[in-house]
């Protein structure tokens, strides 16, 4: 499994630090999206692991673990699609 991940970034200090062209390393994240959120989804014990939330999350922040699903809160925007799509109402939105 691989995905873009957070990496340190230092602003260019001198001219030679600037990239030479417009191409750059793929999957290079420097900021989080967690600040966009008013509510955070919580996966409760009712979860039957049907993976609907995993499939329909526009940000792909719900990921499979050994014992079910977990959420990457660094990049969750709190849209609540997972809560709506869940057939067992196993996801609750909690005010931040």
């Amino acid at each position, binding site marked *: 499994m*691989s995905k873009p991940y957070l990496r340190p970034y230092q602003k260019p200090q001198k001219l030679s630090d600037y990239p030479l062209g417009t191409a750059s390393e793929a999957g290079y*994240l420097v900021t989080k999206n967690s600040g966009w959120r008013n509510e955070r989804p919580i996966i409760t014990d009712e979860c039957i692991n049907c993976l*609907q939330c995993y*499939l*329909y999350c*526009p*940000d792909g922040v719900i990921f499979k673990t050994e014992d079910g699903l977990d959420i990457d809160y660094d990049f969750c925007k709190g849209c609540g699609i997972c809560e709506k799509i869940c057939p067992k109402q196993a996801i609750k939105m909690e005010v931040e």
Partner: protein
Amino acid sequence: MSNKITAKTITDSEFFYGHKACAGCGGSLAVRIALKVLGEGAISVLPAGCMSAVGFNYPHLCFSNNSIISTFAGTASMLTGVEAGARAVGIKNFKAVGLAGDGGTADIGIQALSGAIDRNDDILYICYDNEAYMNTGIQKSGLTPFGAKTTTTPSGENIHGNLRPKKNLFEIVAAHDIPYAATASIGNLPDFINKIEKASKIKGTAYIHVVAPCPIGWGIPVNETIEIARKMMDCGLWYLAEYENGKFKLNKNPSDFSSIEDYLLAQGRFKHLEAADIEILALQRDTKWATIRKNWNNIQEEL
């Protein structure tokens, strides 16, 4: 088929992650799923539009496969170049995929797309259709439906939003006698996944038109993106179909439609519609379905 890609078997890797799309964005879901099916061998080309605006903010780069921004009009021609170039330098197992919005496909990029289909280049073109130029602030595109309010088709006392019906791009593309074309919706991802999988194995040009609601432009709550996409299919204003070997095929032929008012009046962009306007939309829908049912072969019953 036992080897279908499902939520269980699809790769855990994410190729479009940490992007700056609005919460509940339908387009970003379409792009995310498409790249998950195509895998790391996908070389994506994105024209000006939401997905390039939210995916490439140097140094924050959200695609982990090879991706490039094209000119607005040149998605398909850049795909041609990417495919030929990758082949020339001996890259194996790649797929050149274009991910363009409705404006970049139906209006600005249609000439390049038409040319690529004419040359039958080995590319996959995916149009995520959110029914207006959302990135620049909701202007009417060729795929904006009748009655929809946008900043360039405002609703007033005399004129109620967009006057023209939605361009029938799927059939325009099919009319080129393309090897494979399909319609899809993010309201039905298993169907969308199958179609990308199928399209990726086609030798020649493949085109997929996926409806991807935009909560901001459509005037719906951010958590209702999927629900509204499903309502759109249920009320008959969108259909799931394929074009292959010179024949149209309807994937889903509903016996009756849900209420068209329910779908329309749930959205801010249609709030101003009067009964007479809704009547026009219902009539357009019925005419369309009558033609489809009469002319398209191999009509299947419920999936």
